[in-house]
């Protein structure tokens, strides 16, 4: 990760700034300011801020953390953006992070973790948490084709990736609730879906943020090997929650992972080496 040199000259970004887009940001702020760092939750492809608004935002605020979730452009109630790229999504995350009153902790879920990894090179986050991270690469396509061929094959040809509820949730979650969540899923832009496979790897993070990786060994989107590899990139081991599906924030036992994240933050993790 740190082998890559720092990028100072970014000519194209100066020449072609990202177009602004209206963004949906949902907030849950504790009544008393306890000087804890704000959390910014970044949902993965197809999900919106609603996925975190369901349980995690309120829970984090209840424990004294100002909690925010955004919808990447083209998702949730943000502005439609059929031509969005990973760079546009990264721009959205950095813009919201910089608008928060204090240095934020970025929490990315699924492909949102890839967006967060890009954002870490553009914003010195207080810390970063990658939940069931889909960091990209062709391996992820193989898994998706094996687990969910019906939803994945059309995505290869440019349609939206369709995730089914058996991939996203454990059997503990009542069927009606699972159906309700799946019905809300949208889609990422075609270009961003492809960039997940073929796009450039994220630049090194700025500001040495400590990084926590967590997921489930029974996740049917992210295989355990991918979790371990993701954690190793940030010189740590993944925190595992067996028996849960890919959407840890919506599954029946949503409380355990979010408590683990908040406990980790309360211990005030040291900056990464470097």
């Amino acid at each position, binding site marked *: 990760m740190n082998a890559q*040199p720092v990028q100072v000259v970014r000519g194209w970004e*100066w020449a072609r700034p990202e177009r602004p887009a209206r963004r949906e940001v949902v907030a849950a702020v504790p009544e008393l300011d306890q000087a804890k760092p704000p959390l910014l939750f970044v949902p993965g492809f197809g999900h919106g801020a609603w996925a975190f608004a369901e349980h995690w935002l309120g829970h984090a605020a209840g424990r004294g953390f100002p909690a925010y979730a955004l919808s990447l452009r083209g998702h949730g109630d943000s502005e439609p953006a059929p031509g969005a790229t990973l760079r546009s999504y990264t721009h959205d995350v950095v813009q919201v992070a910089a608008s928060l009153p204090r240095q934020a902790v970025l929490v990315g879920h699924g492909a949102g973790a890839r967006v967060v990894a890009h954002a870490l090179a553009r914003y010195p986050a207080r810390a970063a948490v990658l939940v069931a991270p889909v960091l990209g690469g062709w391996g992820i396509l193989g898994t998706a084709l094996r687990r969910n061929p019906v939803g994945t094959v059309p995505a290869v040809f440019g349609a939206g990736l369709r995730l089914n509820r058996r991939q996203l949730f454990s059997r503990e979650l009542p069927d009606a609730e699972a159906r309700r969540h799946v019905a809300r899923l949208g889609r990422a832009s075609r270009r961003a879906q492809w960039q997940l496979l073929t796009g450039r790897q994220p630049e090194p993070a700025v500001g040495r943020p400590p990084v926590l990786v967590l997921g489930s060994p029974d996740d049917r989107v992210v295989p355990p090997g991918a979790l371990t590899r993701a954690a190793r990139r940030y010189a740590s081991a993944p925190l595992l929650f067996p028996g849960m599906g890919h959407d840890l924030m919506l599954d029946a036992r949503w409380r355990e992972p979010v408590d683990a994240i908040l406990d980790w933050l309360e211990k005030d993790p040291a*900056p990464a080496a470097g």
Partner: protein
Amino acid sequence: MSSSTDLGRPDPDPAVAPTTDGRPVSDRGDTVCVIGAGASGLTAVKNLREAGFGVDCYERETGVGGAWNWRHDRSPVYASTHLISSRPFTQFPDFPMPDDWPDYPHHAQLLSYFERYADHFDLRQHVWFGTEVVRVEPVEGDRWDVTTRSTGGYGPERTSRYAAVVLANGHNWSPKLPRYEGLEQFRGEVMHASSYKDPAQLRGKRVLVVGAGNTGCDIAVEAAQQASRCWHSTRRGYWYAPKYVFGRPADQVNDTMLALRVPLRVRQWLYHWTLRLTVGDLTRFGLPRPDHRVYETHPIANSQLVYYVGHGEVTPVPDVARFGDRTVELTDGREIDPDLVVFATGYLPRFEFLEGRVLGDADGSGRPRLWLNAFAAGHPTLAVVGLVQPDSGIFPISHWQSVLFARLLTLRTTRPDRAAAFGRRVAAGLGERYSGKVKDSTRHWFEVGHADYLRALQRALHDLEGK
């Protein structure tokens, strides 16, 4: 989350040798001293903190923002000041301005941006407001004695010893006033652009604006709107670039060409050709023909000046020859009778608290000899941040200068060999330039091309990290 516990300076430490004049010194250990809490100072504090250093920042005013805080008595901004370069290369690379701001934000937005930057990264706790630096002296072991007192000169002086010093005191506060024959006997009002704040100062007057920098052009435009008469005196012809070309901010079009690695000659040709098509032949308006190619002087971005010249509201005139009792004689022999003269003749960098030789300027010419406009030979723990006159925004440059310096200070303990190699590089590269050929003047000696400069800085950073 961690709040710094190194607040509050300890009492003078008797173990430390007193200053040369016998006063006690308090030793601040590995803490770094940053002078100034403007844009460059703030980014230095943030980046040094991020690298794990304790920081004491001294600010003579009571707020952050330096030059961009119009309440500060050294602030050069006037009511209508807007950015000259557009947002993408003017924001800090790791803290973007809101994307719903205009391409060229107003100075009040800039100030709110710096205040938010200070709050976001919790920087104010490291800043000693209302404290000015009187003296900075190198002592043995590459350390520094910094003497401070309350702004205004009252109160006792106190001296603290630091591991390193960052000079970020700005270069747009000490007005440069040219000498003219007879200026003392001129009965009209004379002011420097630094005391120009509001167009009401021009209303109904006959105004002569001297100088064709971005400030001079802005004031000439405001005089065209407010004054009863406006003359604009320039030493030479300039290229007045519009702020927008091809429907995009002009500097972004320039950055597109830089990203495509278009050679300077071709860029100059394209630029001249674009100006000919859009702005037209300037000599037809009575403006002198530029005696240089574009990019050879600091760029002037002003879409309105030529517009008002074309409406007869601004009369372009040559340089001033001498002042009379009520009149001003120009170099072409003409006489004009302004009742207000505004000198928009720029500023000079000043480091009044530091001996000139520390920055390689032993003869007091006011032009330090540095490498990367930031590092002085023989002083590995000293950096000047923001002493550049870029052809675009300055804040990203200050950011990367302070990142490089923080990196250097870290490596002084972890990899002394690399820090020493950096020191040799500094000594070898003093006075290096980072732009094409430019006219020689007090403002152009530190003119840099932003892409050339940052490429050189990126190389220095990679060499330092052994990549």
